């Protein structure tokens, strides 16, 4: 008797291959899902079902085009790390994460010699614009503020995951 349902392990392995392929990228073509499914040697339906499942369970935040901020003039970005009162970090984080010039806002653990628990990535078109935005953040943090520092990136030593699939 043939068991047509995929076994969990097989399904997990397929899911992993699909994740890797989706990170690599979809082609900008008329049938992007069909083209990717063909590369993976699976049916278009199977691929779309897996993508839908990952959208439903939140594993995929979104599918779409990721613009190149640098090429669009948003060449100044700063990682600003904050030491925020633990009782207020969720409220403050939620508030800062909603600002349109903030692209990442994460709570991370403190460590010995590292008191910062909130990481905020700020983008702007000039150094002045970024500094103004940090001032806005400082104001929003209010009484929950203990300390902050901005870590300017001086060089990109490696950046992958921003690959284009089409090489032409």
């Amino acid at each position, binding site marked *: 008797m043939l068991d047509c349902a995929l076994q969990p392990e097989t399904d997990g392995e397929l899911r992993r291959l699909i994740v890797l392929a989706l990170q690599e990228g979809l082609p900008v073509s*008329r049938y992007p899902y069909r083209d990717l499914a063909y590369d993976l040697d699976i049916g278009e339906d199977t691929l779309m079902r897996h993508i*839908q499942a990952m959208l439903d369970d939140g594993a995929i935040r979104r599918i779409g085009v990721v613009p190149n901020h640098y090429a669009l003039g948003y060449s100044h970005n700063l990682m600003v790390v904050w030491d925020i009162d633990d009782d207020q970090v969720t409220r403050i984080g939620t508030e800062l994460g909603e600002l349109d010039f903030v692209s990442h806002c994460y709570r*991370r653990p403190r*460590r010995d010699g590292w008191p910062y628990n909130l990481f905020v990535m700020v983008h702007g078109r000039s150094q002045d614009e970024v500094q103004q935005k940090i001032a806005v953040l400082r104001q929003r943090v209010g009484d929950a503020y203990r300390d902050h520092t901005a870590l300017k990136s001086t060089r990109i030593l*490696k950046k992958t995951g921003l690959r284009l699939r089409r090489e032409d």
Partner: protein
Amino acid sequence: MKALSPLDCALLNQVQKGFPLEERPFAVIAQHLGMSENAVLERLQQLDAEGVISRFGAVFEPNTVGASTLAALAVPPEHIRETAELVNAVPGVNHNYLREHEFNLWFVITGRNREELTGSLADIERKTGYPMLDLPMEQAYHIDLGFPL
């Protein structure tokens, strides 16, 4: 710096989020914008060629598929180059930035699971011998809906 036309902005905003999971997604996008499917595809391919698009694909929630963390090393300035090479050669390292701080080498590292990740980090710590921070995300406060243009 590349200046975008209003139509390019509308197109890029449209394709950043809520991308249709349908056979011909760009036809759906085209309909929203009152353009033809061919015009949308051609324009996106052009923007891609001009370097305005860095990627078209899925953005995953961290740690739902495998494990990842943000790590930092405090490297003496004269040893940055060889340390960066060593770190970049470790499987799973996918971003690495030099930043102005005592902890100056910042990288994102991923693994199939937390065990594999811990092993890779221990490996880096042993090979470099520099103080290291392992700062896994505890909570995300930003819902990434793209970058408004």
